[in-house]
């Protein structure tokens, strides 16, 4: 059967459809607002955590559709720089605190000071949480969760060797040496000398008494102390042979899998890898956690935050709903339970699901003395492109700690010049 439409009947049909559409309820026609969210979650637990938060958000805000877009951490700055330059920035982006200064300088973030001031959950957060994302009195993000540095250790191996969890770096070194048995492929410490390993070197320098910058903004690195720190840290491989020989190339995946598979006895990371490790080793039995040991001059454990920031004005109201939702206690605890990332909200951190968990004791303790990551324009690039190669050169015998210290100090001078 063939139906022929003449022009008149087509016009009638169109007019009818238009009239019918006017009778439809407004809500049915209102398209949900869509926003996209750039994040760097890659592990299974992180993706599961994000999924959980999105589920809760969808139930609370059915009118807002969030499209998550994964940007692998090493590529994040390249992608966002290109997005800013080309005007294709996301609605909301996750920003690690050490990247804030660079992103702000390139104009990637929107000031949300007024929104935060009117936010009903503002008082759930300590003022200190906002300092790393504030410049010249303007705040650009809401803390989503906290990176609490701590150590994971093989509780069973320590018990067998009769060693207590170390409280100083020297004790940690001794424990690493004692637990190393290279013939069995077992090493005391999983040193991260590959991608992402730069921040541990910066921490080590500060633990030996040499902060990156002084309070007045000038270079704080003192050559002798930097040399000592590098000598100690790299010495775990080149002198003590207490870390896997692959250390110079070991990134996140390698140190985590090395610990999970029984290659290493201790690793230095943050609470965010807790669930990944607990998926392979029994918490409290096979592995435990302890706060970062103290160095000769300071105890340096980082307390840094991942912030959610609005990157463009379009759909800013919907973006703000998503940004602040991460501060809801239910969302924060759901994310913690899937990942291990600590809530940034004081109210959420006081939840008994956290306080009554023995494994989080070290993280709770660290909240008392943890320090923020050094943050200034050029900090991330300096750490990645100068500090890390310098460490790798010592680990692979291409440079001495003295030579590496000179590179690090000269590189910092160039970065802030």
């Amino acid at each position, binding site marked *: 059967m063939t139906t022929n439409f003449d022009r008149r009947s087509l016009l009638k049909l169109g007019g009818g459809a238009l009239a019918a559409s006017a009778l439809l309820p407004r809500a049915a026609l209102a398209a949900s607002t869509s926003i996209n969210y750039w994040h760097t979650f890659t592990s299974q637990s992180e993706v599961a955590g994000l999924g959980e938060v999105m589920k809760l958000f969808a139930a609370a805000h059915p009118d807002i559709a969030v499209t998550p877009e994964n940007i692998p951490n090493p590529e994040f700055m390249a992608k966002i720089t290109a997005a800013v330059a080309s005007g294709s920035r996301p609605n909301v982006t996750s920003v690690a605190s050490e990247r804030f200064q660079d992103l702000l300088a390139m104009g990637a973030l929107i000031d949300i000071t007024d929104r935060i001031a009117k936010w009903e959950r503002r008082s759930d957060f300590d003022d200190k949480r906002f300092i790393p994302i504030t410049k010249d009195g303007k705040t650009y993000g809401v803390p989503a969760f906290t990176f609490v540095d701590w150590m994971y250790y093989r509780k069973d191996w320590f018990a067998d060797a009769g060693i207590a969890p170390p409280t100083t770096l020297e004790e940690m070194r001794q424990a690493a040496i004692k637990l190393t048995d290279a013939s069995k492929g077992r090493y005391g410490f999983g040193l991260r000398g590959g991608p992402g390993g730069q921040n541990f070197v910066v921490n080590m320098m500060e633990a030996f008494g040499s902060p990156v910058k002084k309070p007045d903004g000038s270079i704080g690195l003192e050559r002798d102390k930097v040399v000592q720190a590098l000598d100690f840290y790299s010495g775990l491989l080149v002198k003590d042979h207490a870390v896997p*020989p692959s250390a110079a190339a070991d990134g996140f995946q*390698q140190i985590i899998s090395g610990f999970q598979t029984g290659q290493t006895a201790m690793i230095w990371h943050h609470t965010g890898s807790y669930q990944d490790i607990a998926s392979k080793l029994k918490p409290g039995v096979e592995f435990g956690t302890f706060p970062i040991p103290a160095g000769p001059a300071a105890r340096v454990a980082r307390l840094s935050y991942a912030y959610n920031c609005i990157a463009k004005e379009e759909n800013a109201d919907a973006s703000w709903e998503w940004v602040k939702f991460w501060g809801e206690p239910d969302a924060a605890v759901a994310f913690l339970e899937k990942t291990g990332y600590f809530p940034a909200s004081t109210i959420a951190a006081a939840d008994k699901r956290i306080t009554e968990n023995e494994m989080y004791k070290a993280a709770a303790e660290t909240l008392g003395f943890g320090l923020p990551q050094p943050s200034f324009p050029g900090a991330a690039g300096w750490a990645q492109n100068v500090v890390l190669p310098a460490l790798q050169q010592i680990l692979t015998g291409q440079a001495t700690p003295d030579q590496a210290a000179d590179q690090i100090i000269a590189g910092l001078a160039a970065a802030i010049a």
Partner: protein
Amino acid sequence: MARGIATAGLPPPRSTWDAINPARLLGELSETRYWMYLLLLPSALLITAIVLFPTAYGFRLSVQEMRLNRPDLGTGFVAFKHYARMLSDPIFWLALRNTAVWVTTSVLIEFLVGLVAALALNRNLPGTKVFAVLILLPYFLPNVVAGNMWALMLDSRIGVINDLLVRFGLLGGYKAWFADPSTAMGGAILVEAWHSFPFFTLLIMAGLKGIPADLYKAADIDGAGPLAQLRFITLPMLRTIIAAAVILRVIGLVNSPDLLLILTQGGPGRATEVLSLYAFQSAYQDFNFGYAGALSVVMFVLLMLFAWAYIRLSKVNQD
């Protein structure tokens, strides 16, 4: 003036309208030599927009201050400041040396393996088509996939390559190939060669099909063996194709840091730092687009010089 030239030999306009009639003027113009330029204009504009402008912009960046995370420095003209810095930058010289090693060795291996593969596939033996597909497979893999796949296979804990080498007694224990400066570049070159040798295979195979069989028959009669035939017939006949393939591959290798970015990120230390990677890091990690622009200009000039010298030395243009 053009109209003056154009109207020579044509009947004069019959009315005022005729004198300004665009169709008539266009018709007159089409009779002149300027018509050619008018037809070329759209293409010229397109090329200017998509080729010349970005290139010129890159050159301009290299003489400008452009640090995205330091707006306080402004974006003014700095003349040859970045180039002067390059001269005293030890990382630049190291990256230049590494680039030479990375490109030369990779292209050499890719060419030799590609040539052998193409010669084998050109013999039309049974199963050749299946082998042709298998040999070309690596080239179809994106660099990201190939890089991550090889990073896993060469991993010092779970890598299958280490496992095989240990099982066959070729290695005493698992080796972290990318953690040792003496093997990192070699490992990366092998991955690159594995990934890109089919490019040479493809082009050389196409060239082999065009060589007349009579030449080989004549050489046979003259008593030339396979090696002599390769040296005196195949390679000279493939000269143009080889030159094109080498130039394209060198350009690709000099400009693309992606495989090294995945495998080594320039490490350990700076053992695998090449110019493209250094430019990438300067732009997207240090946000110093001015210096990255200067590095790119140097790469551009080096590639131009290489292409010119290679074409001259290989005498391709003399055919």
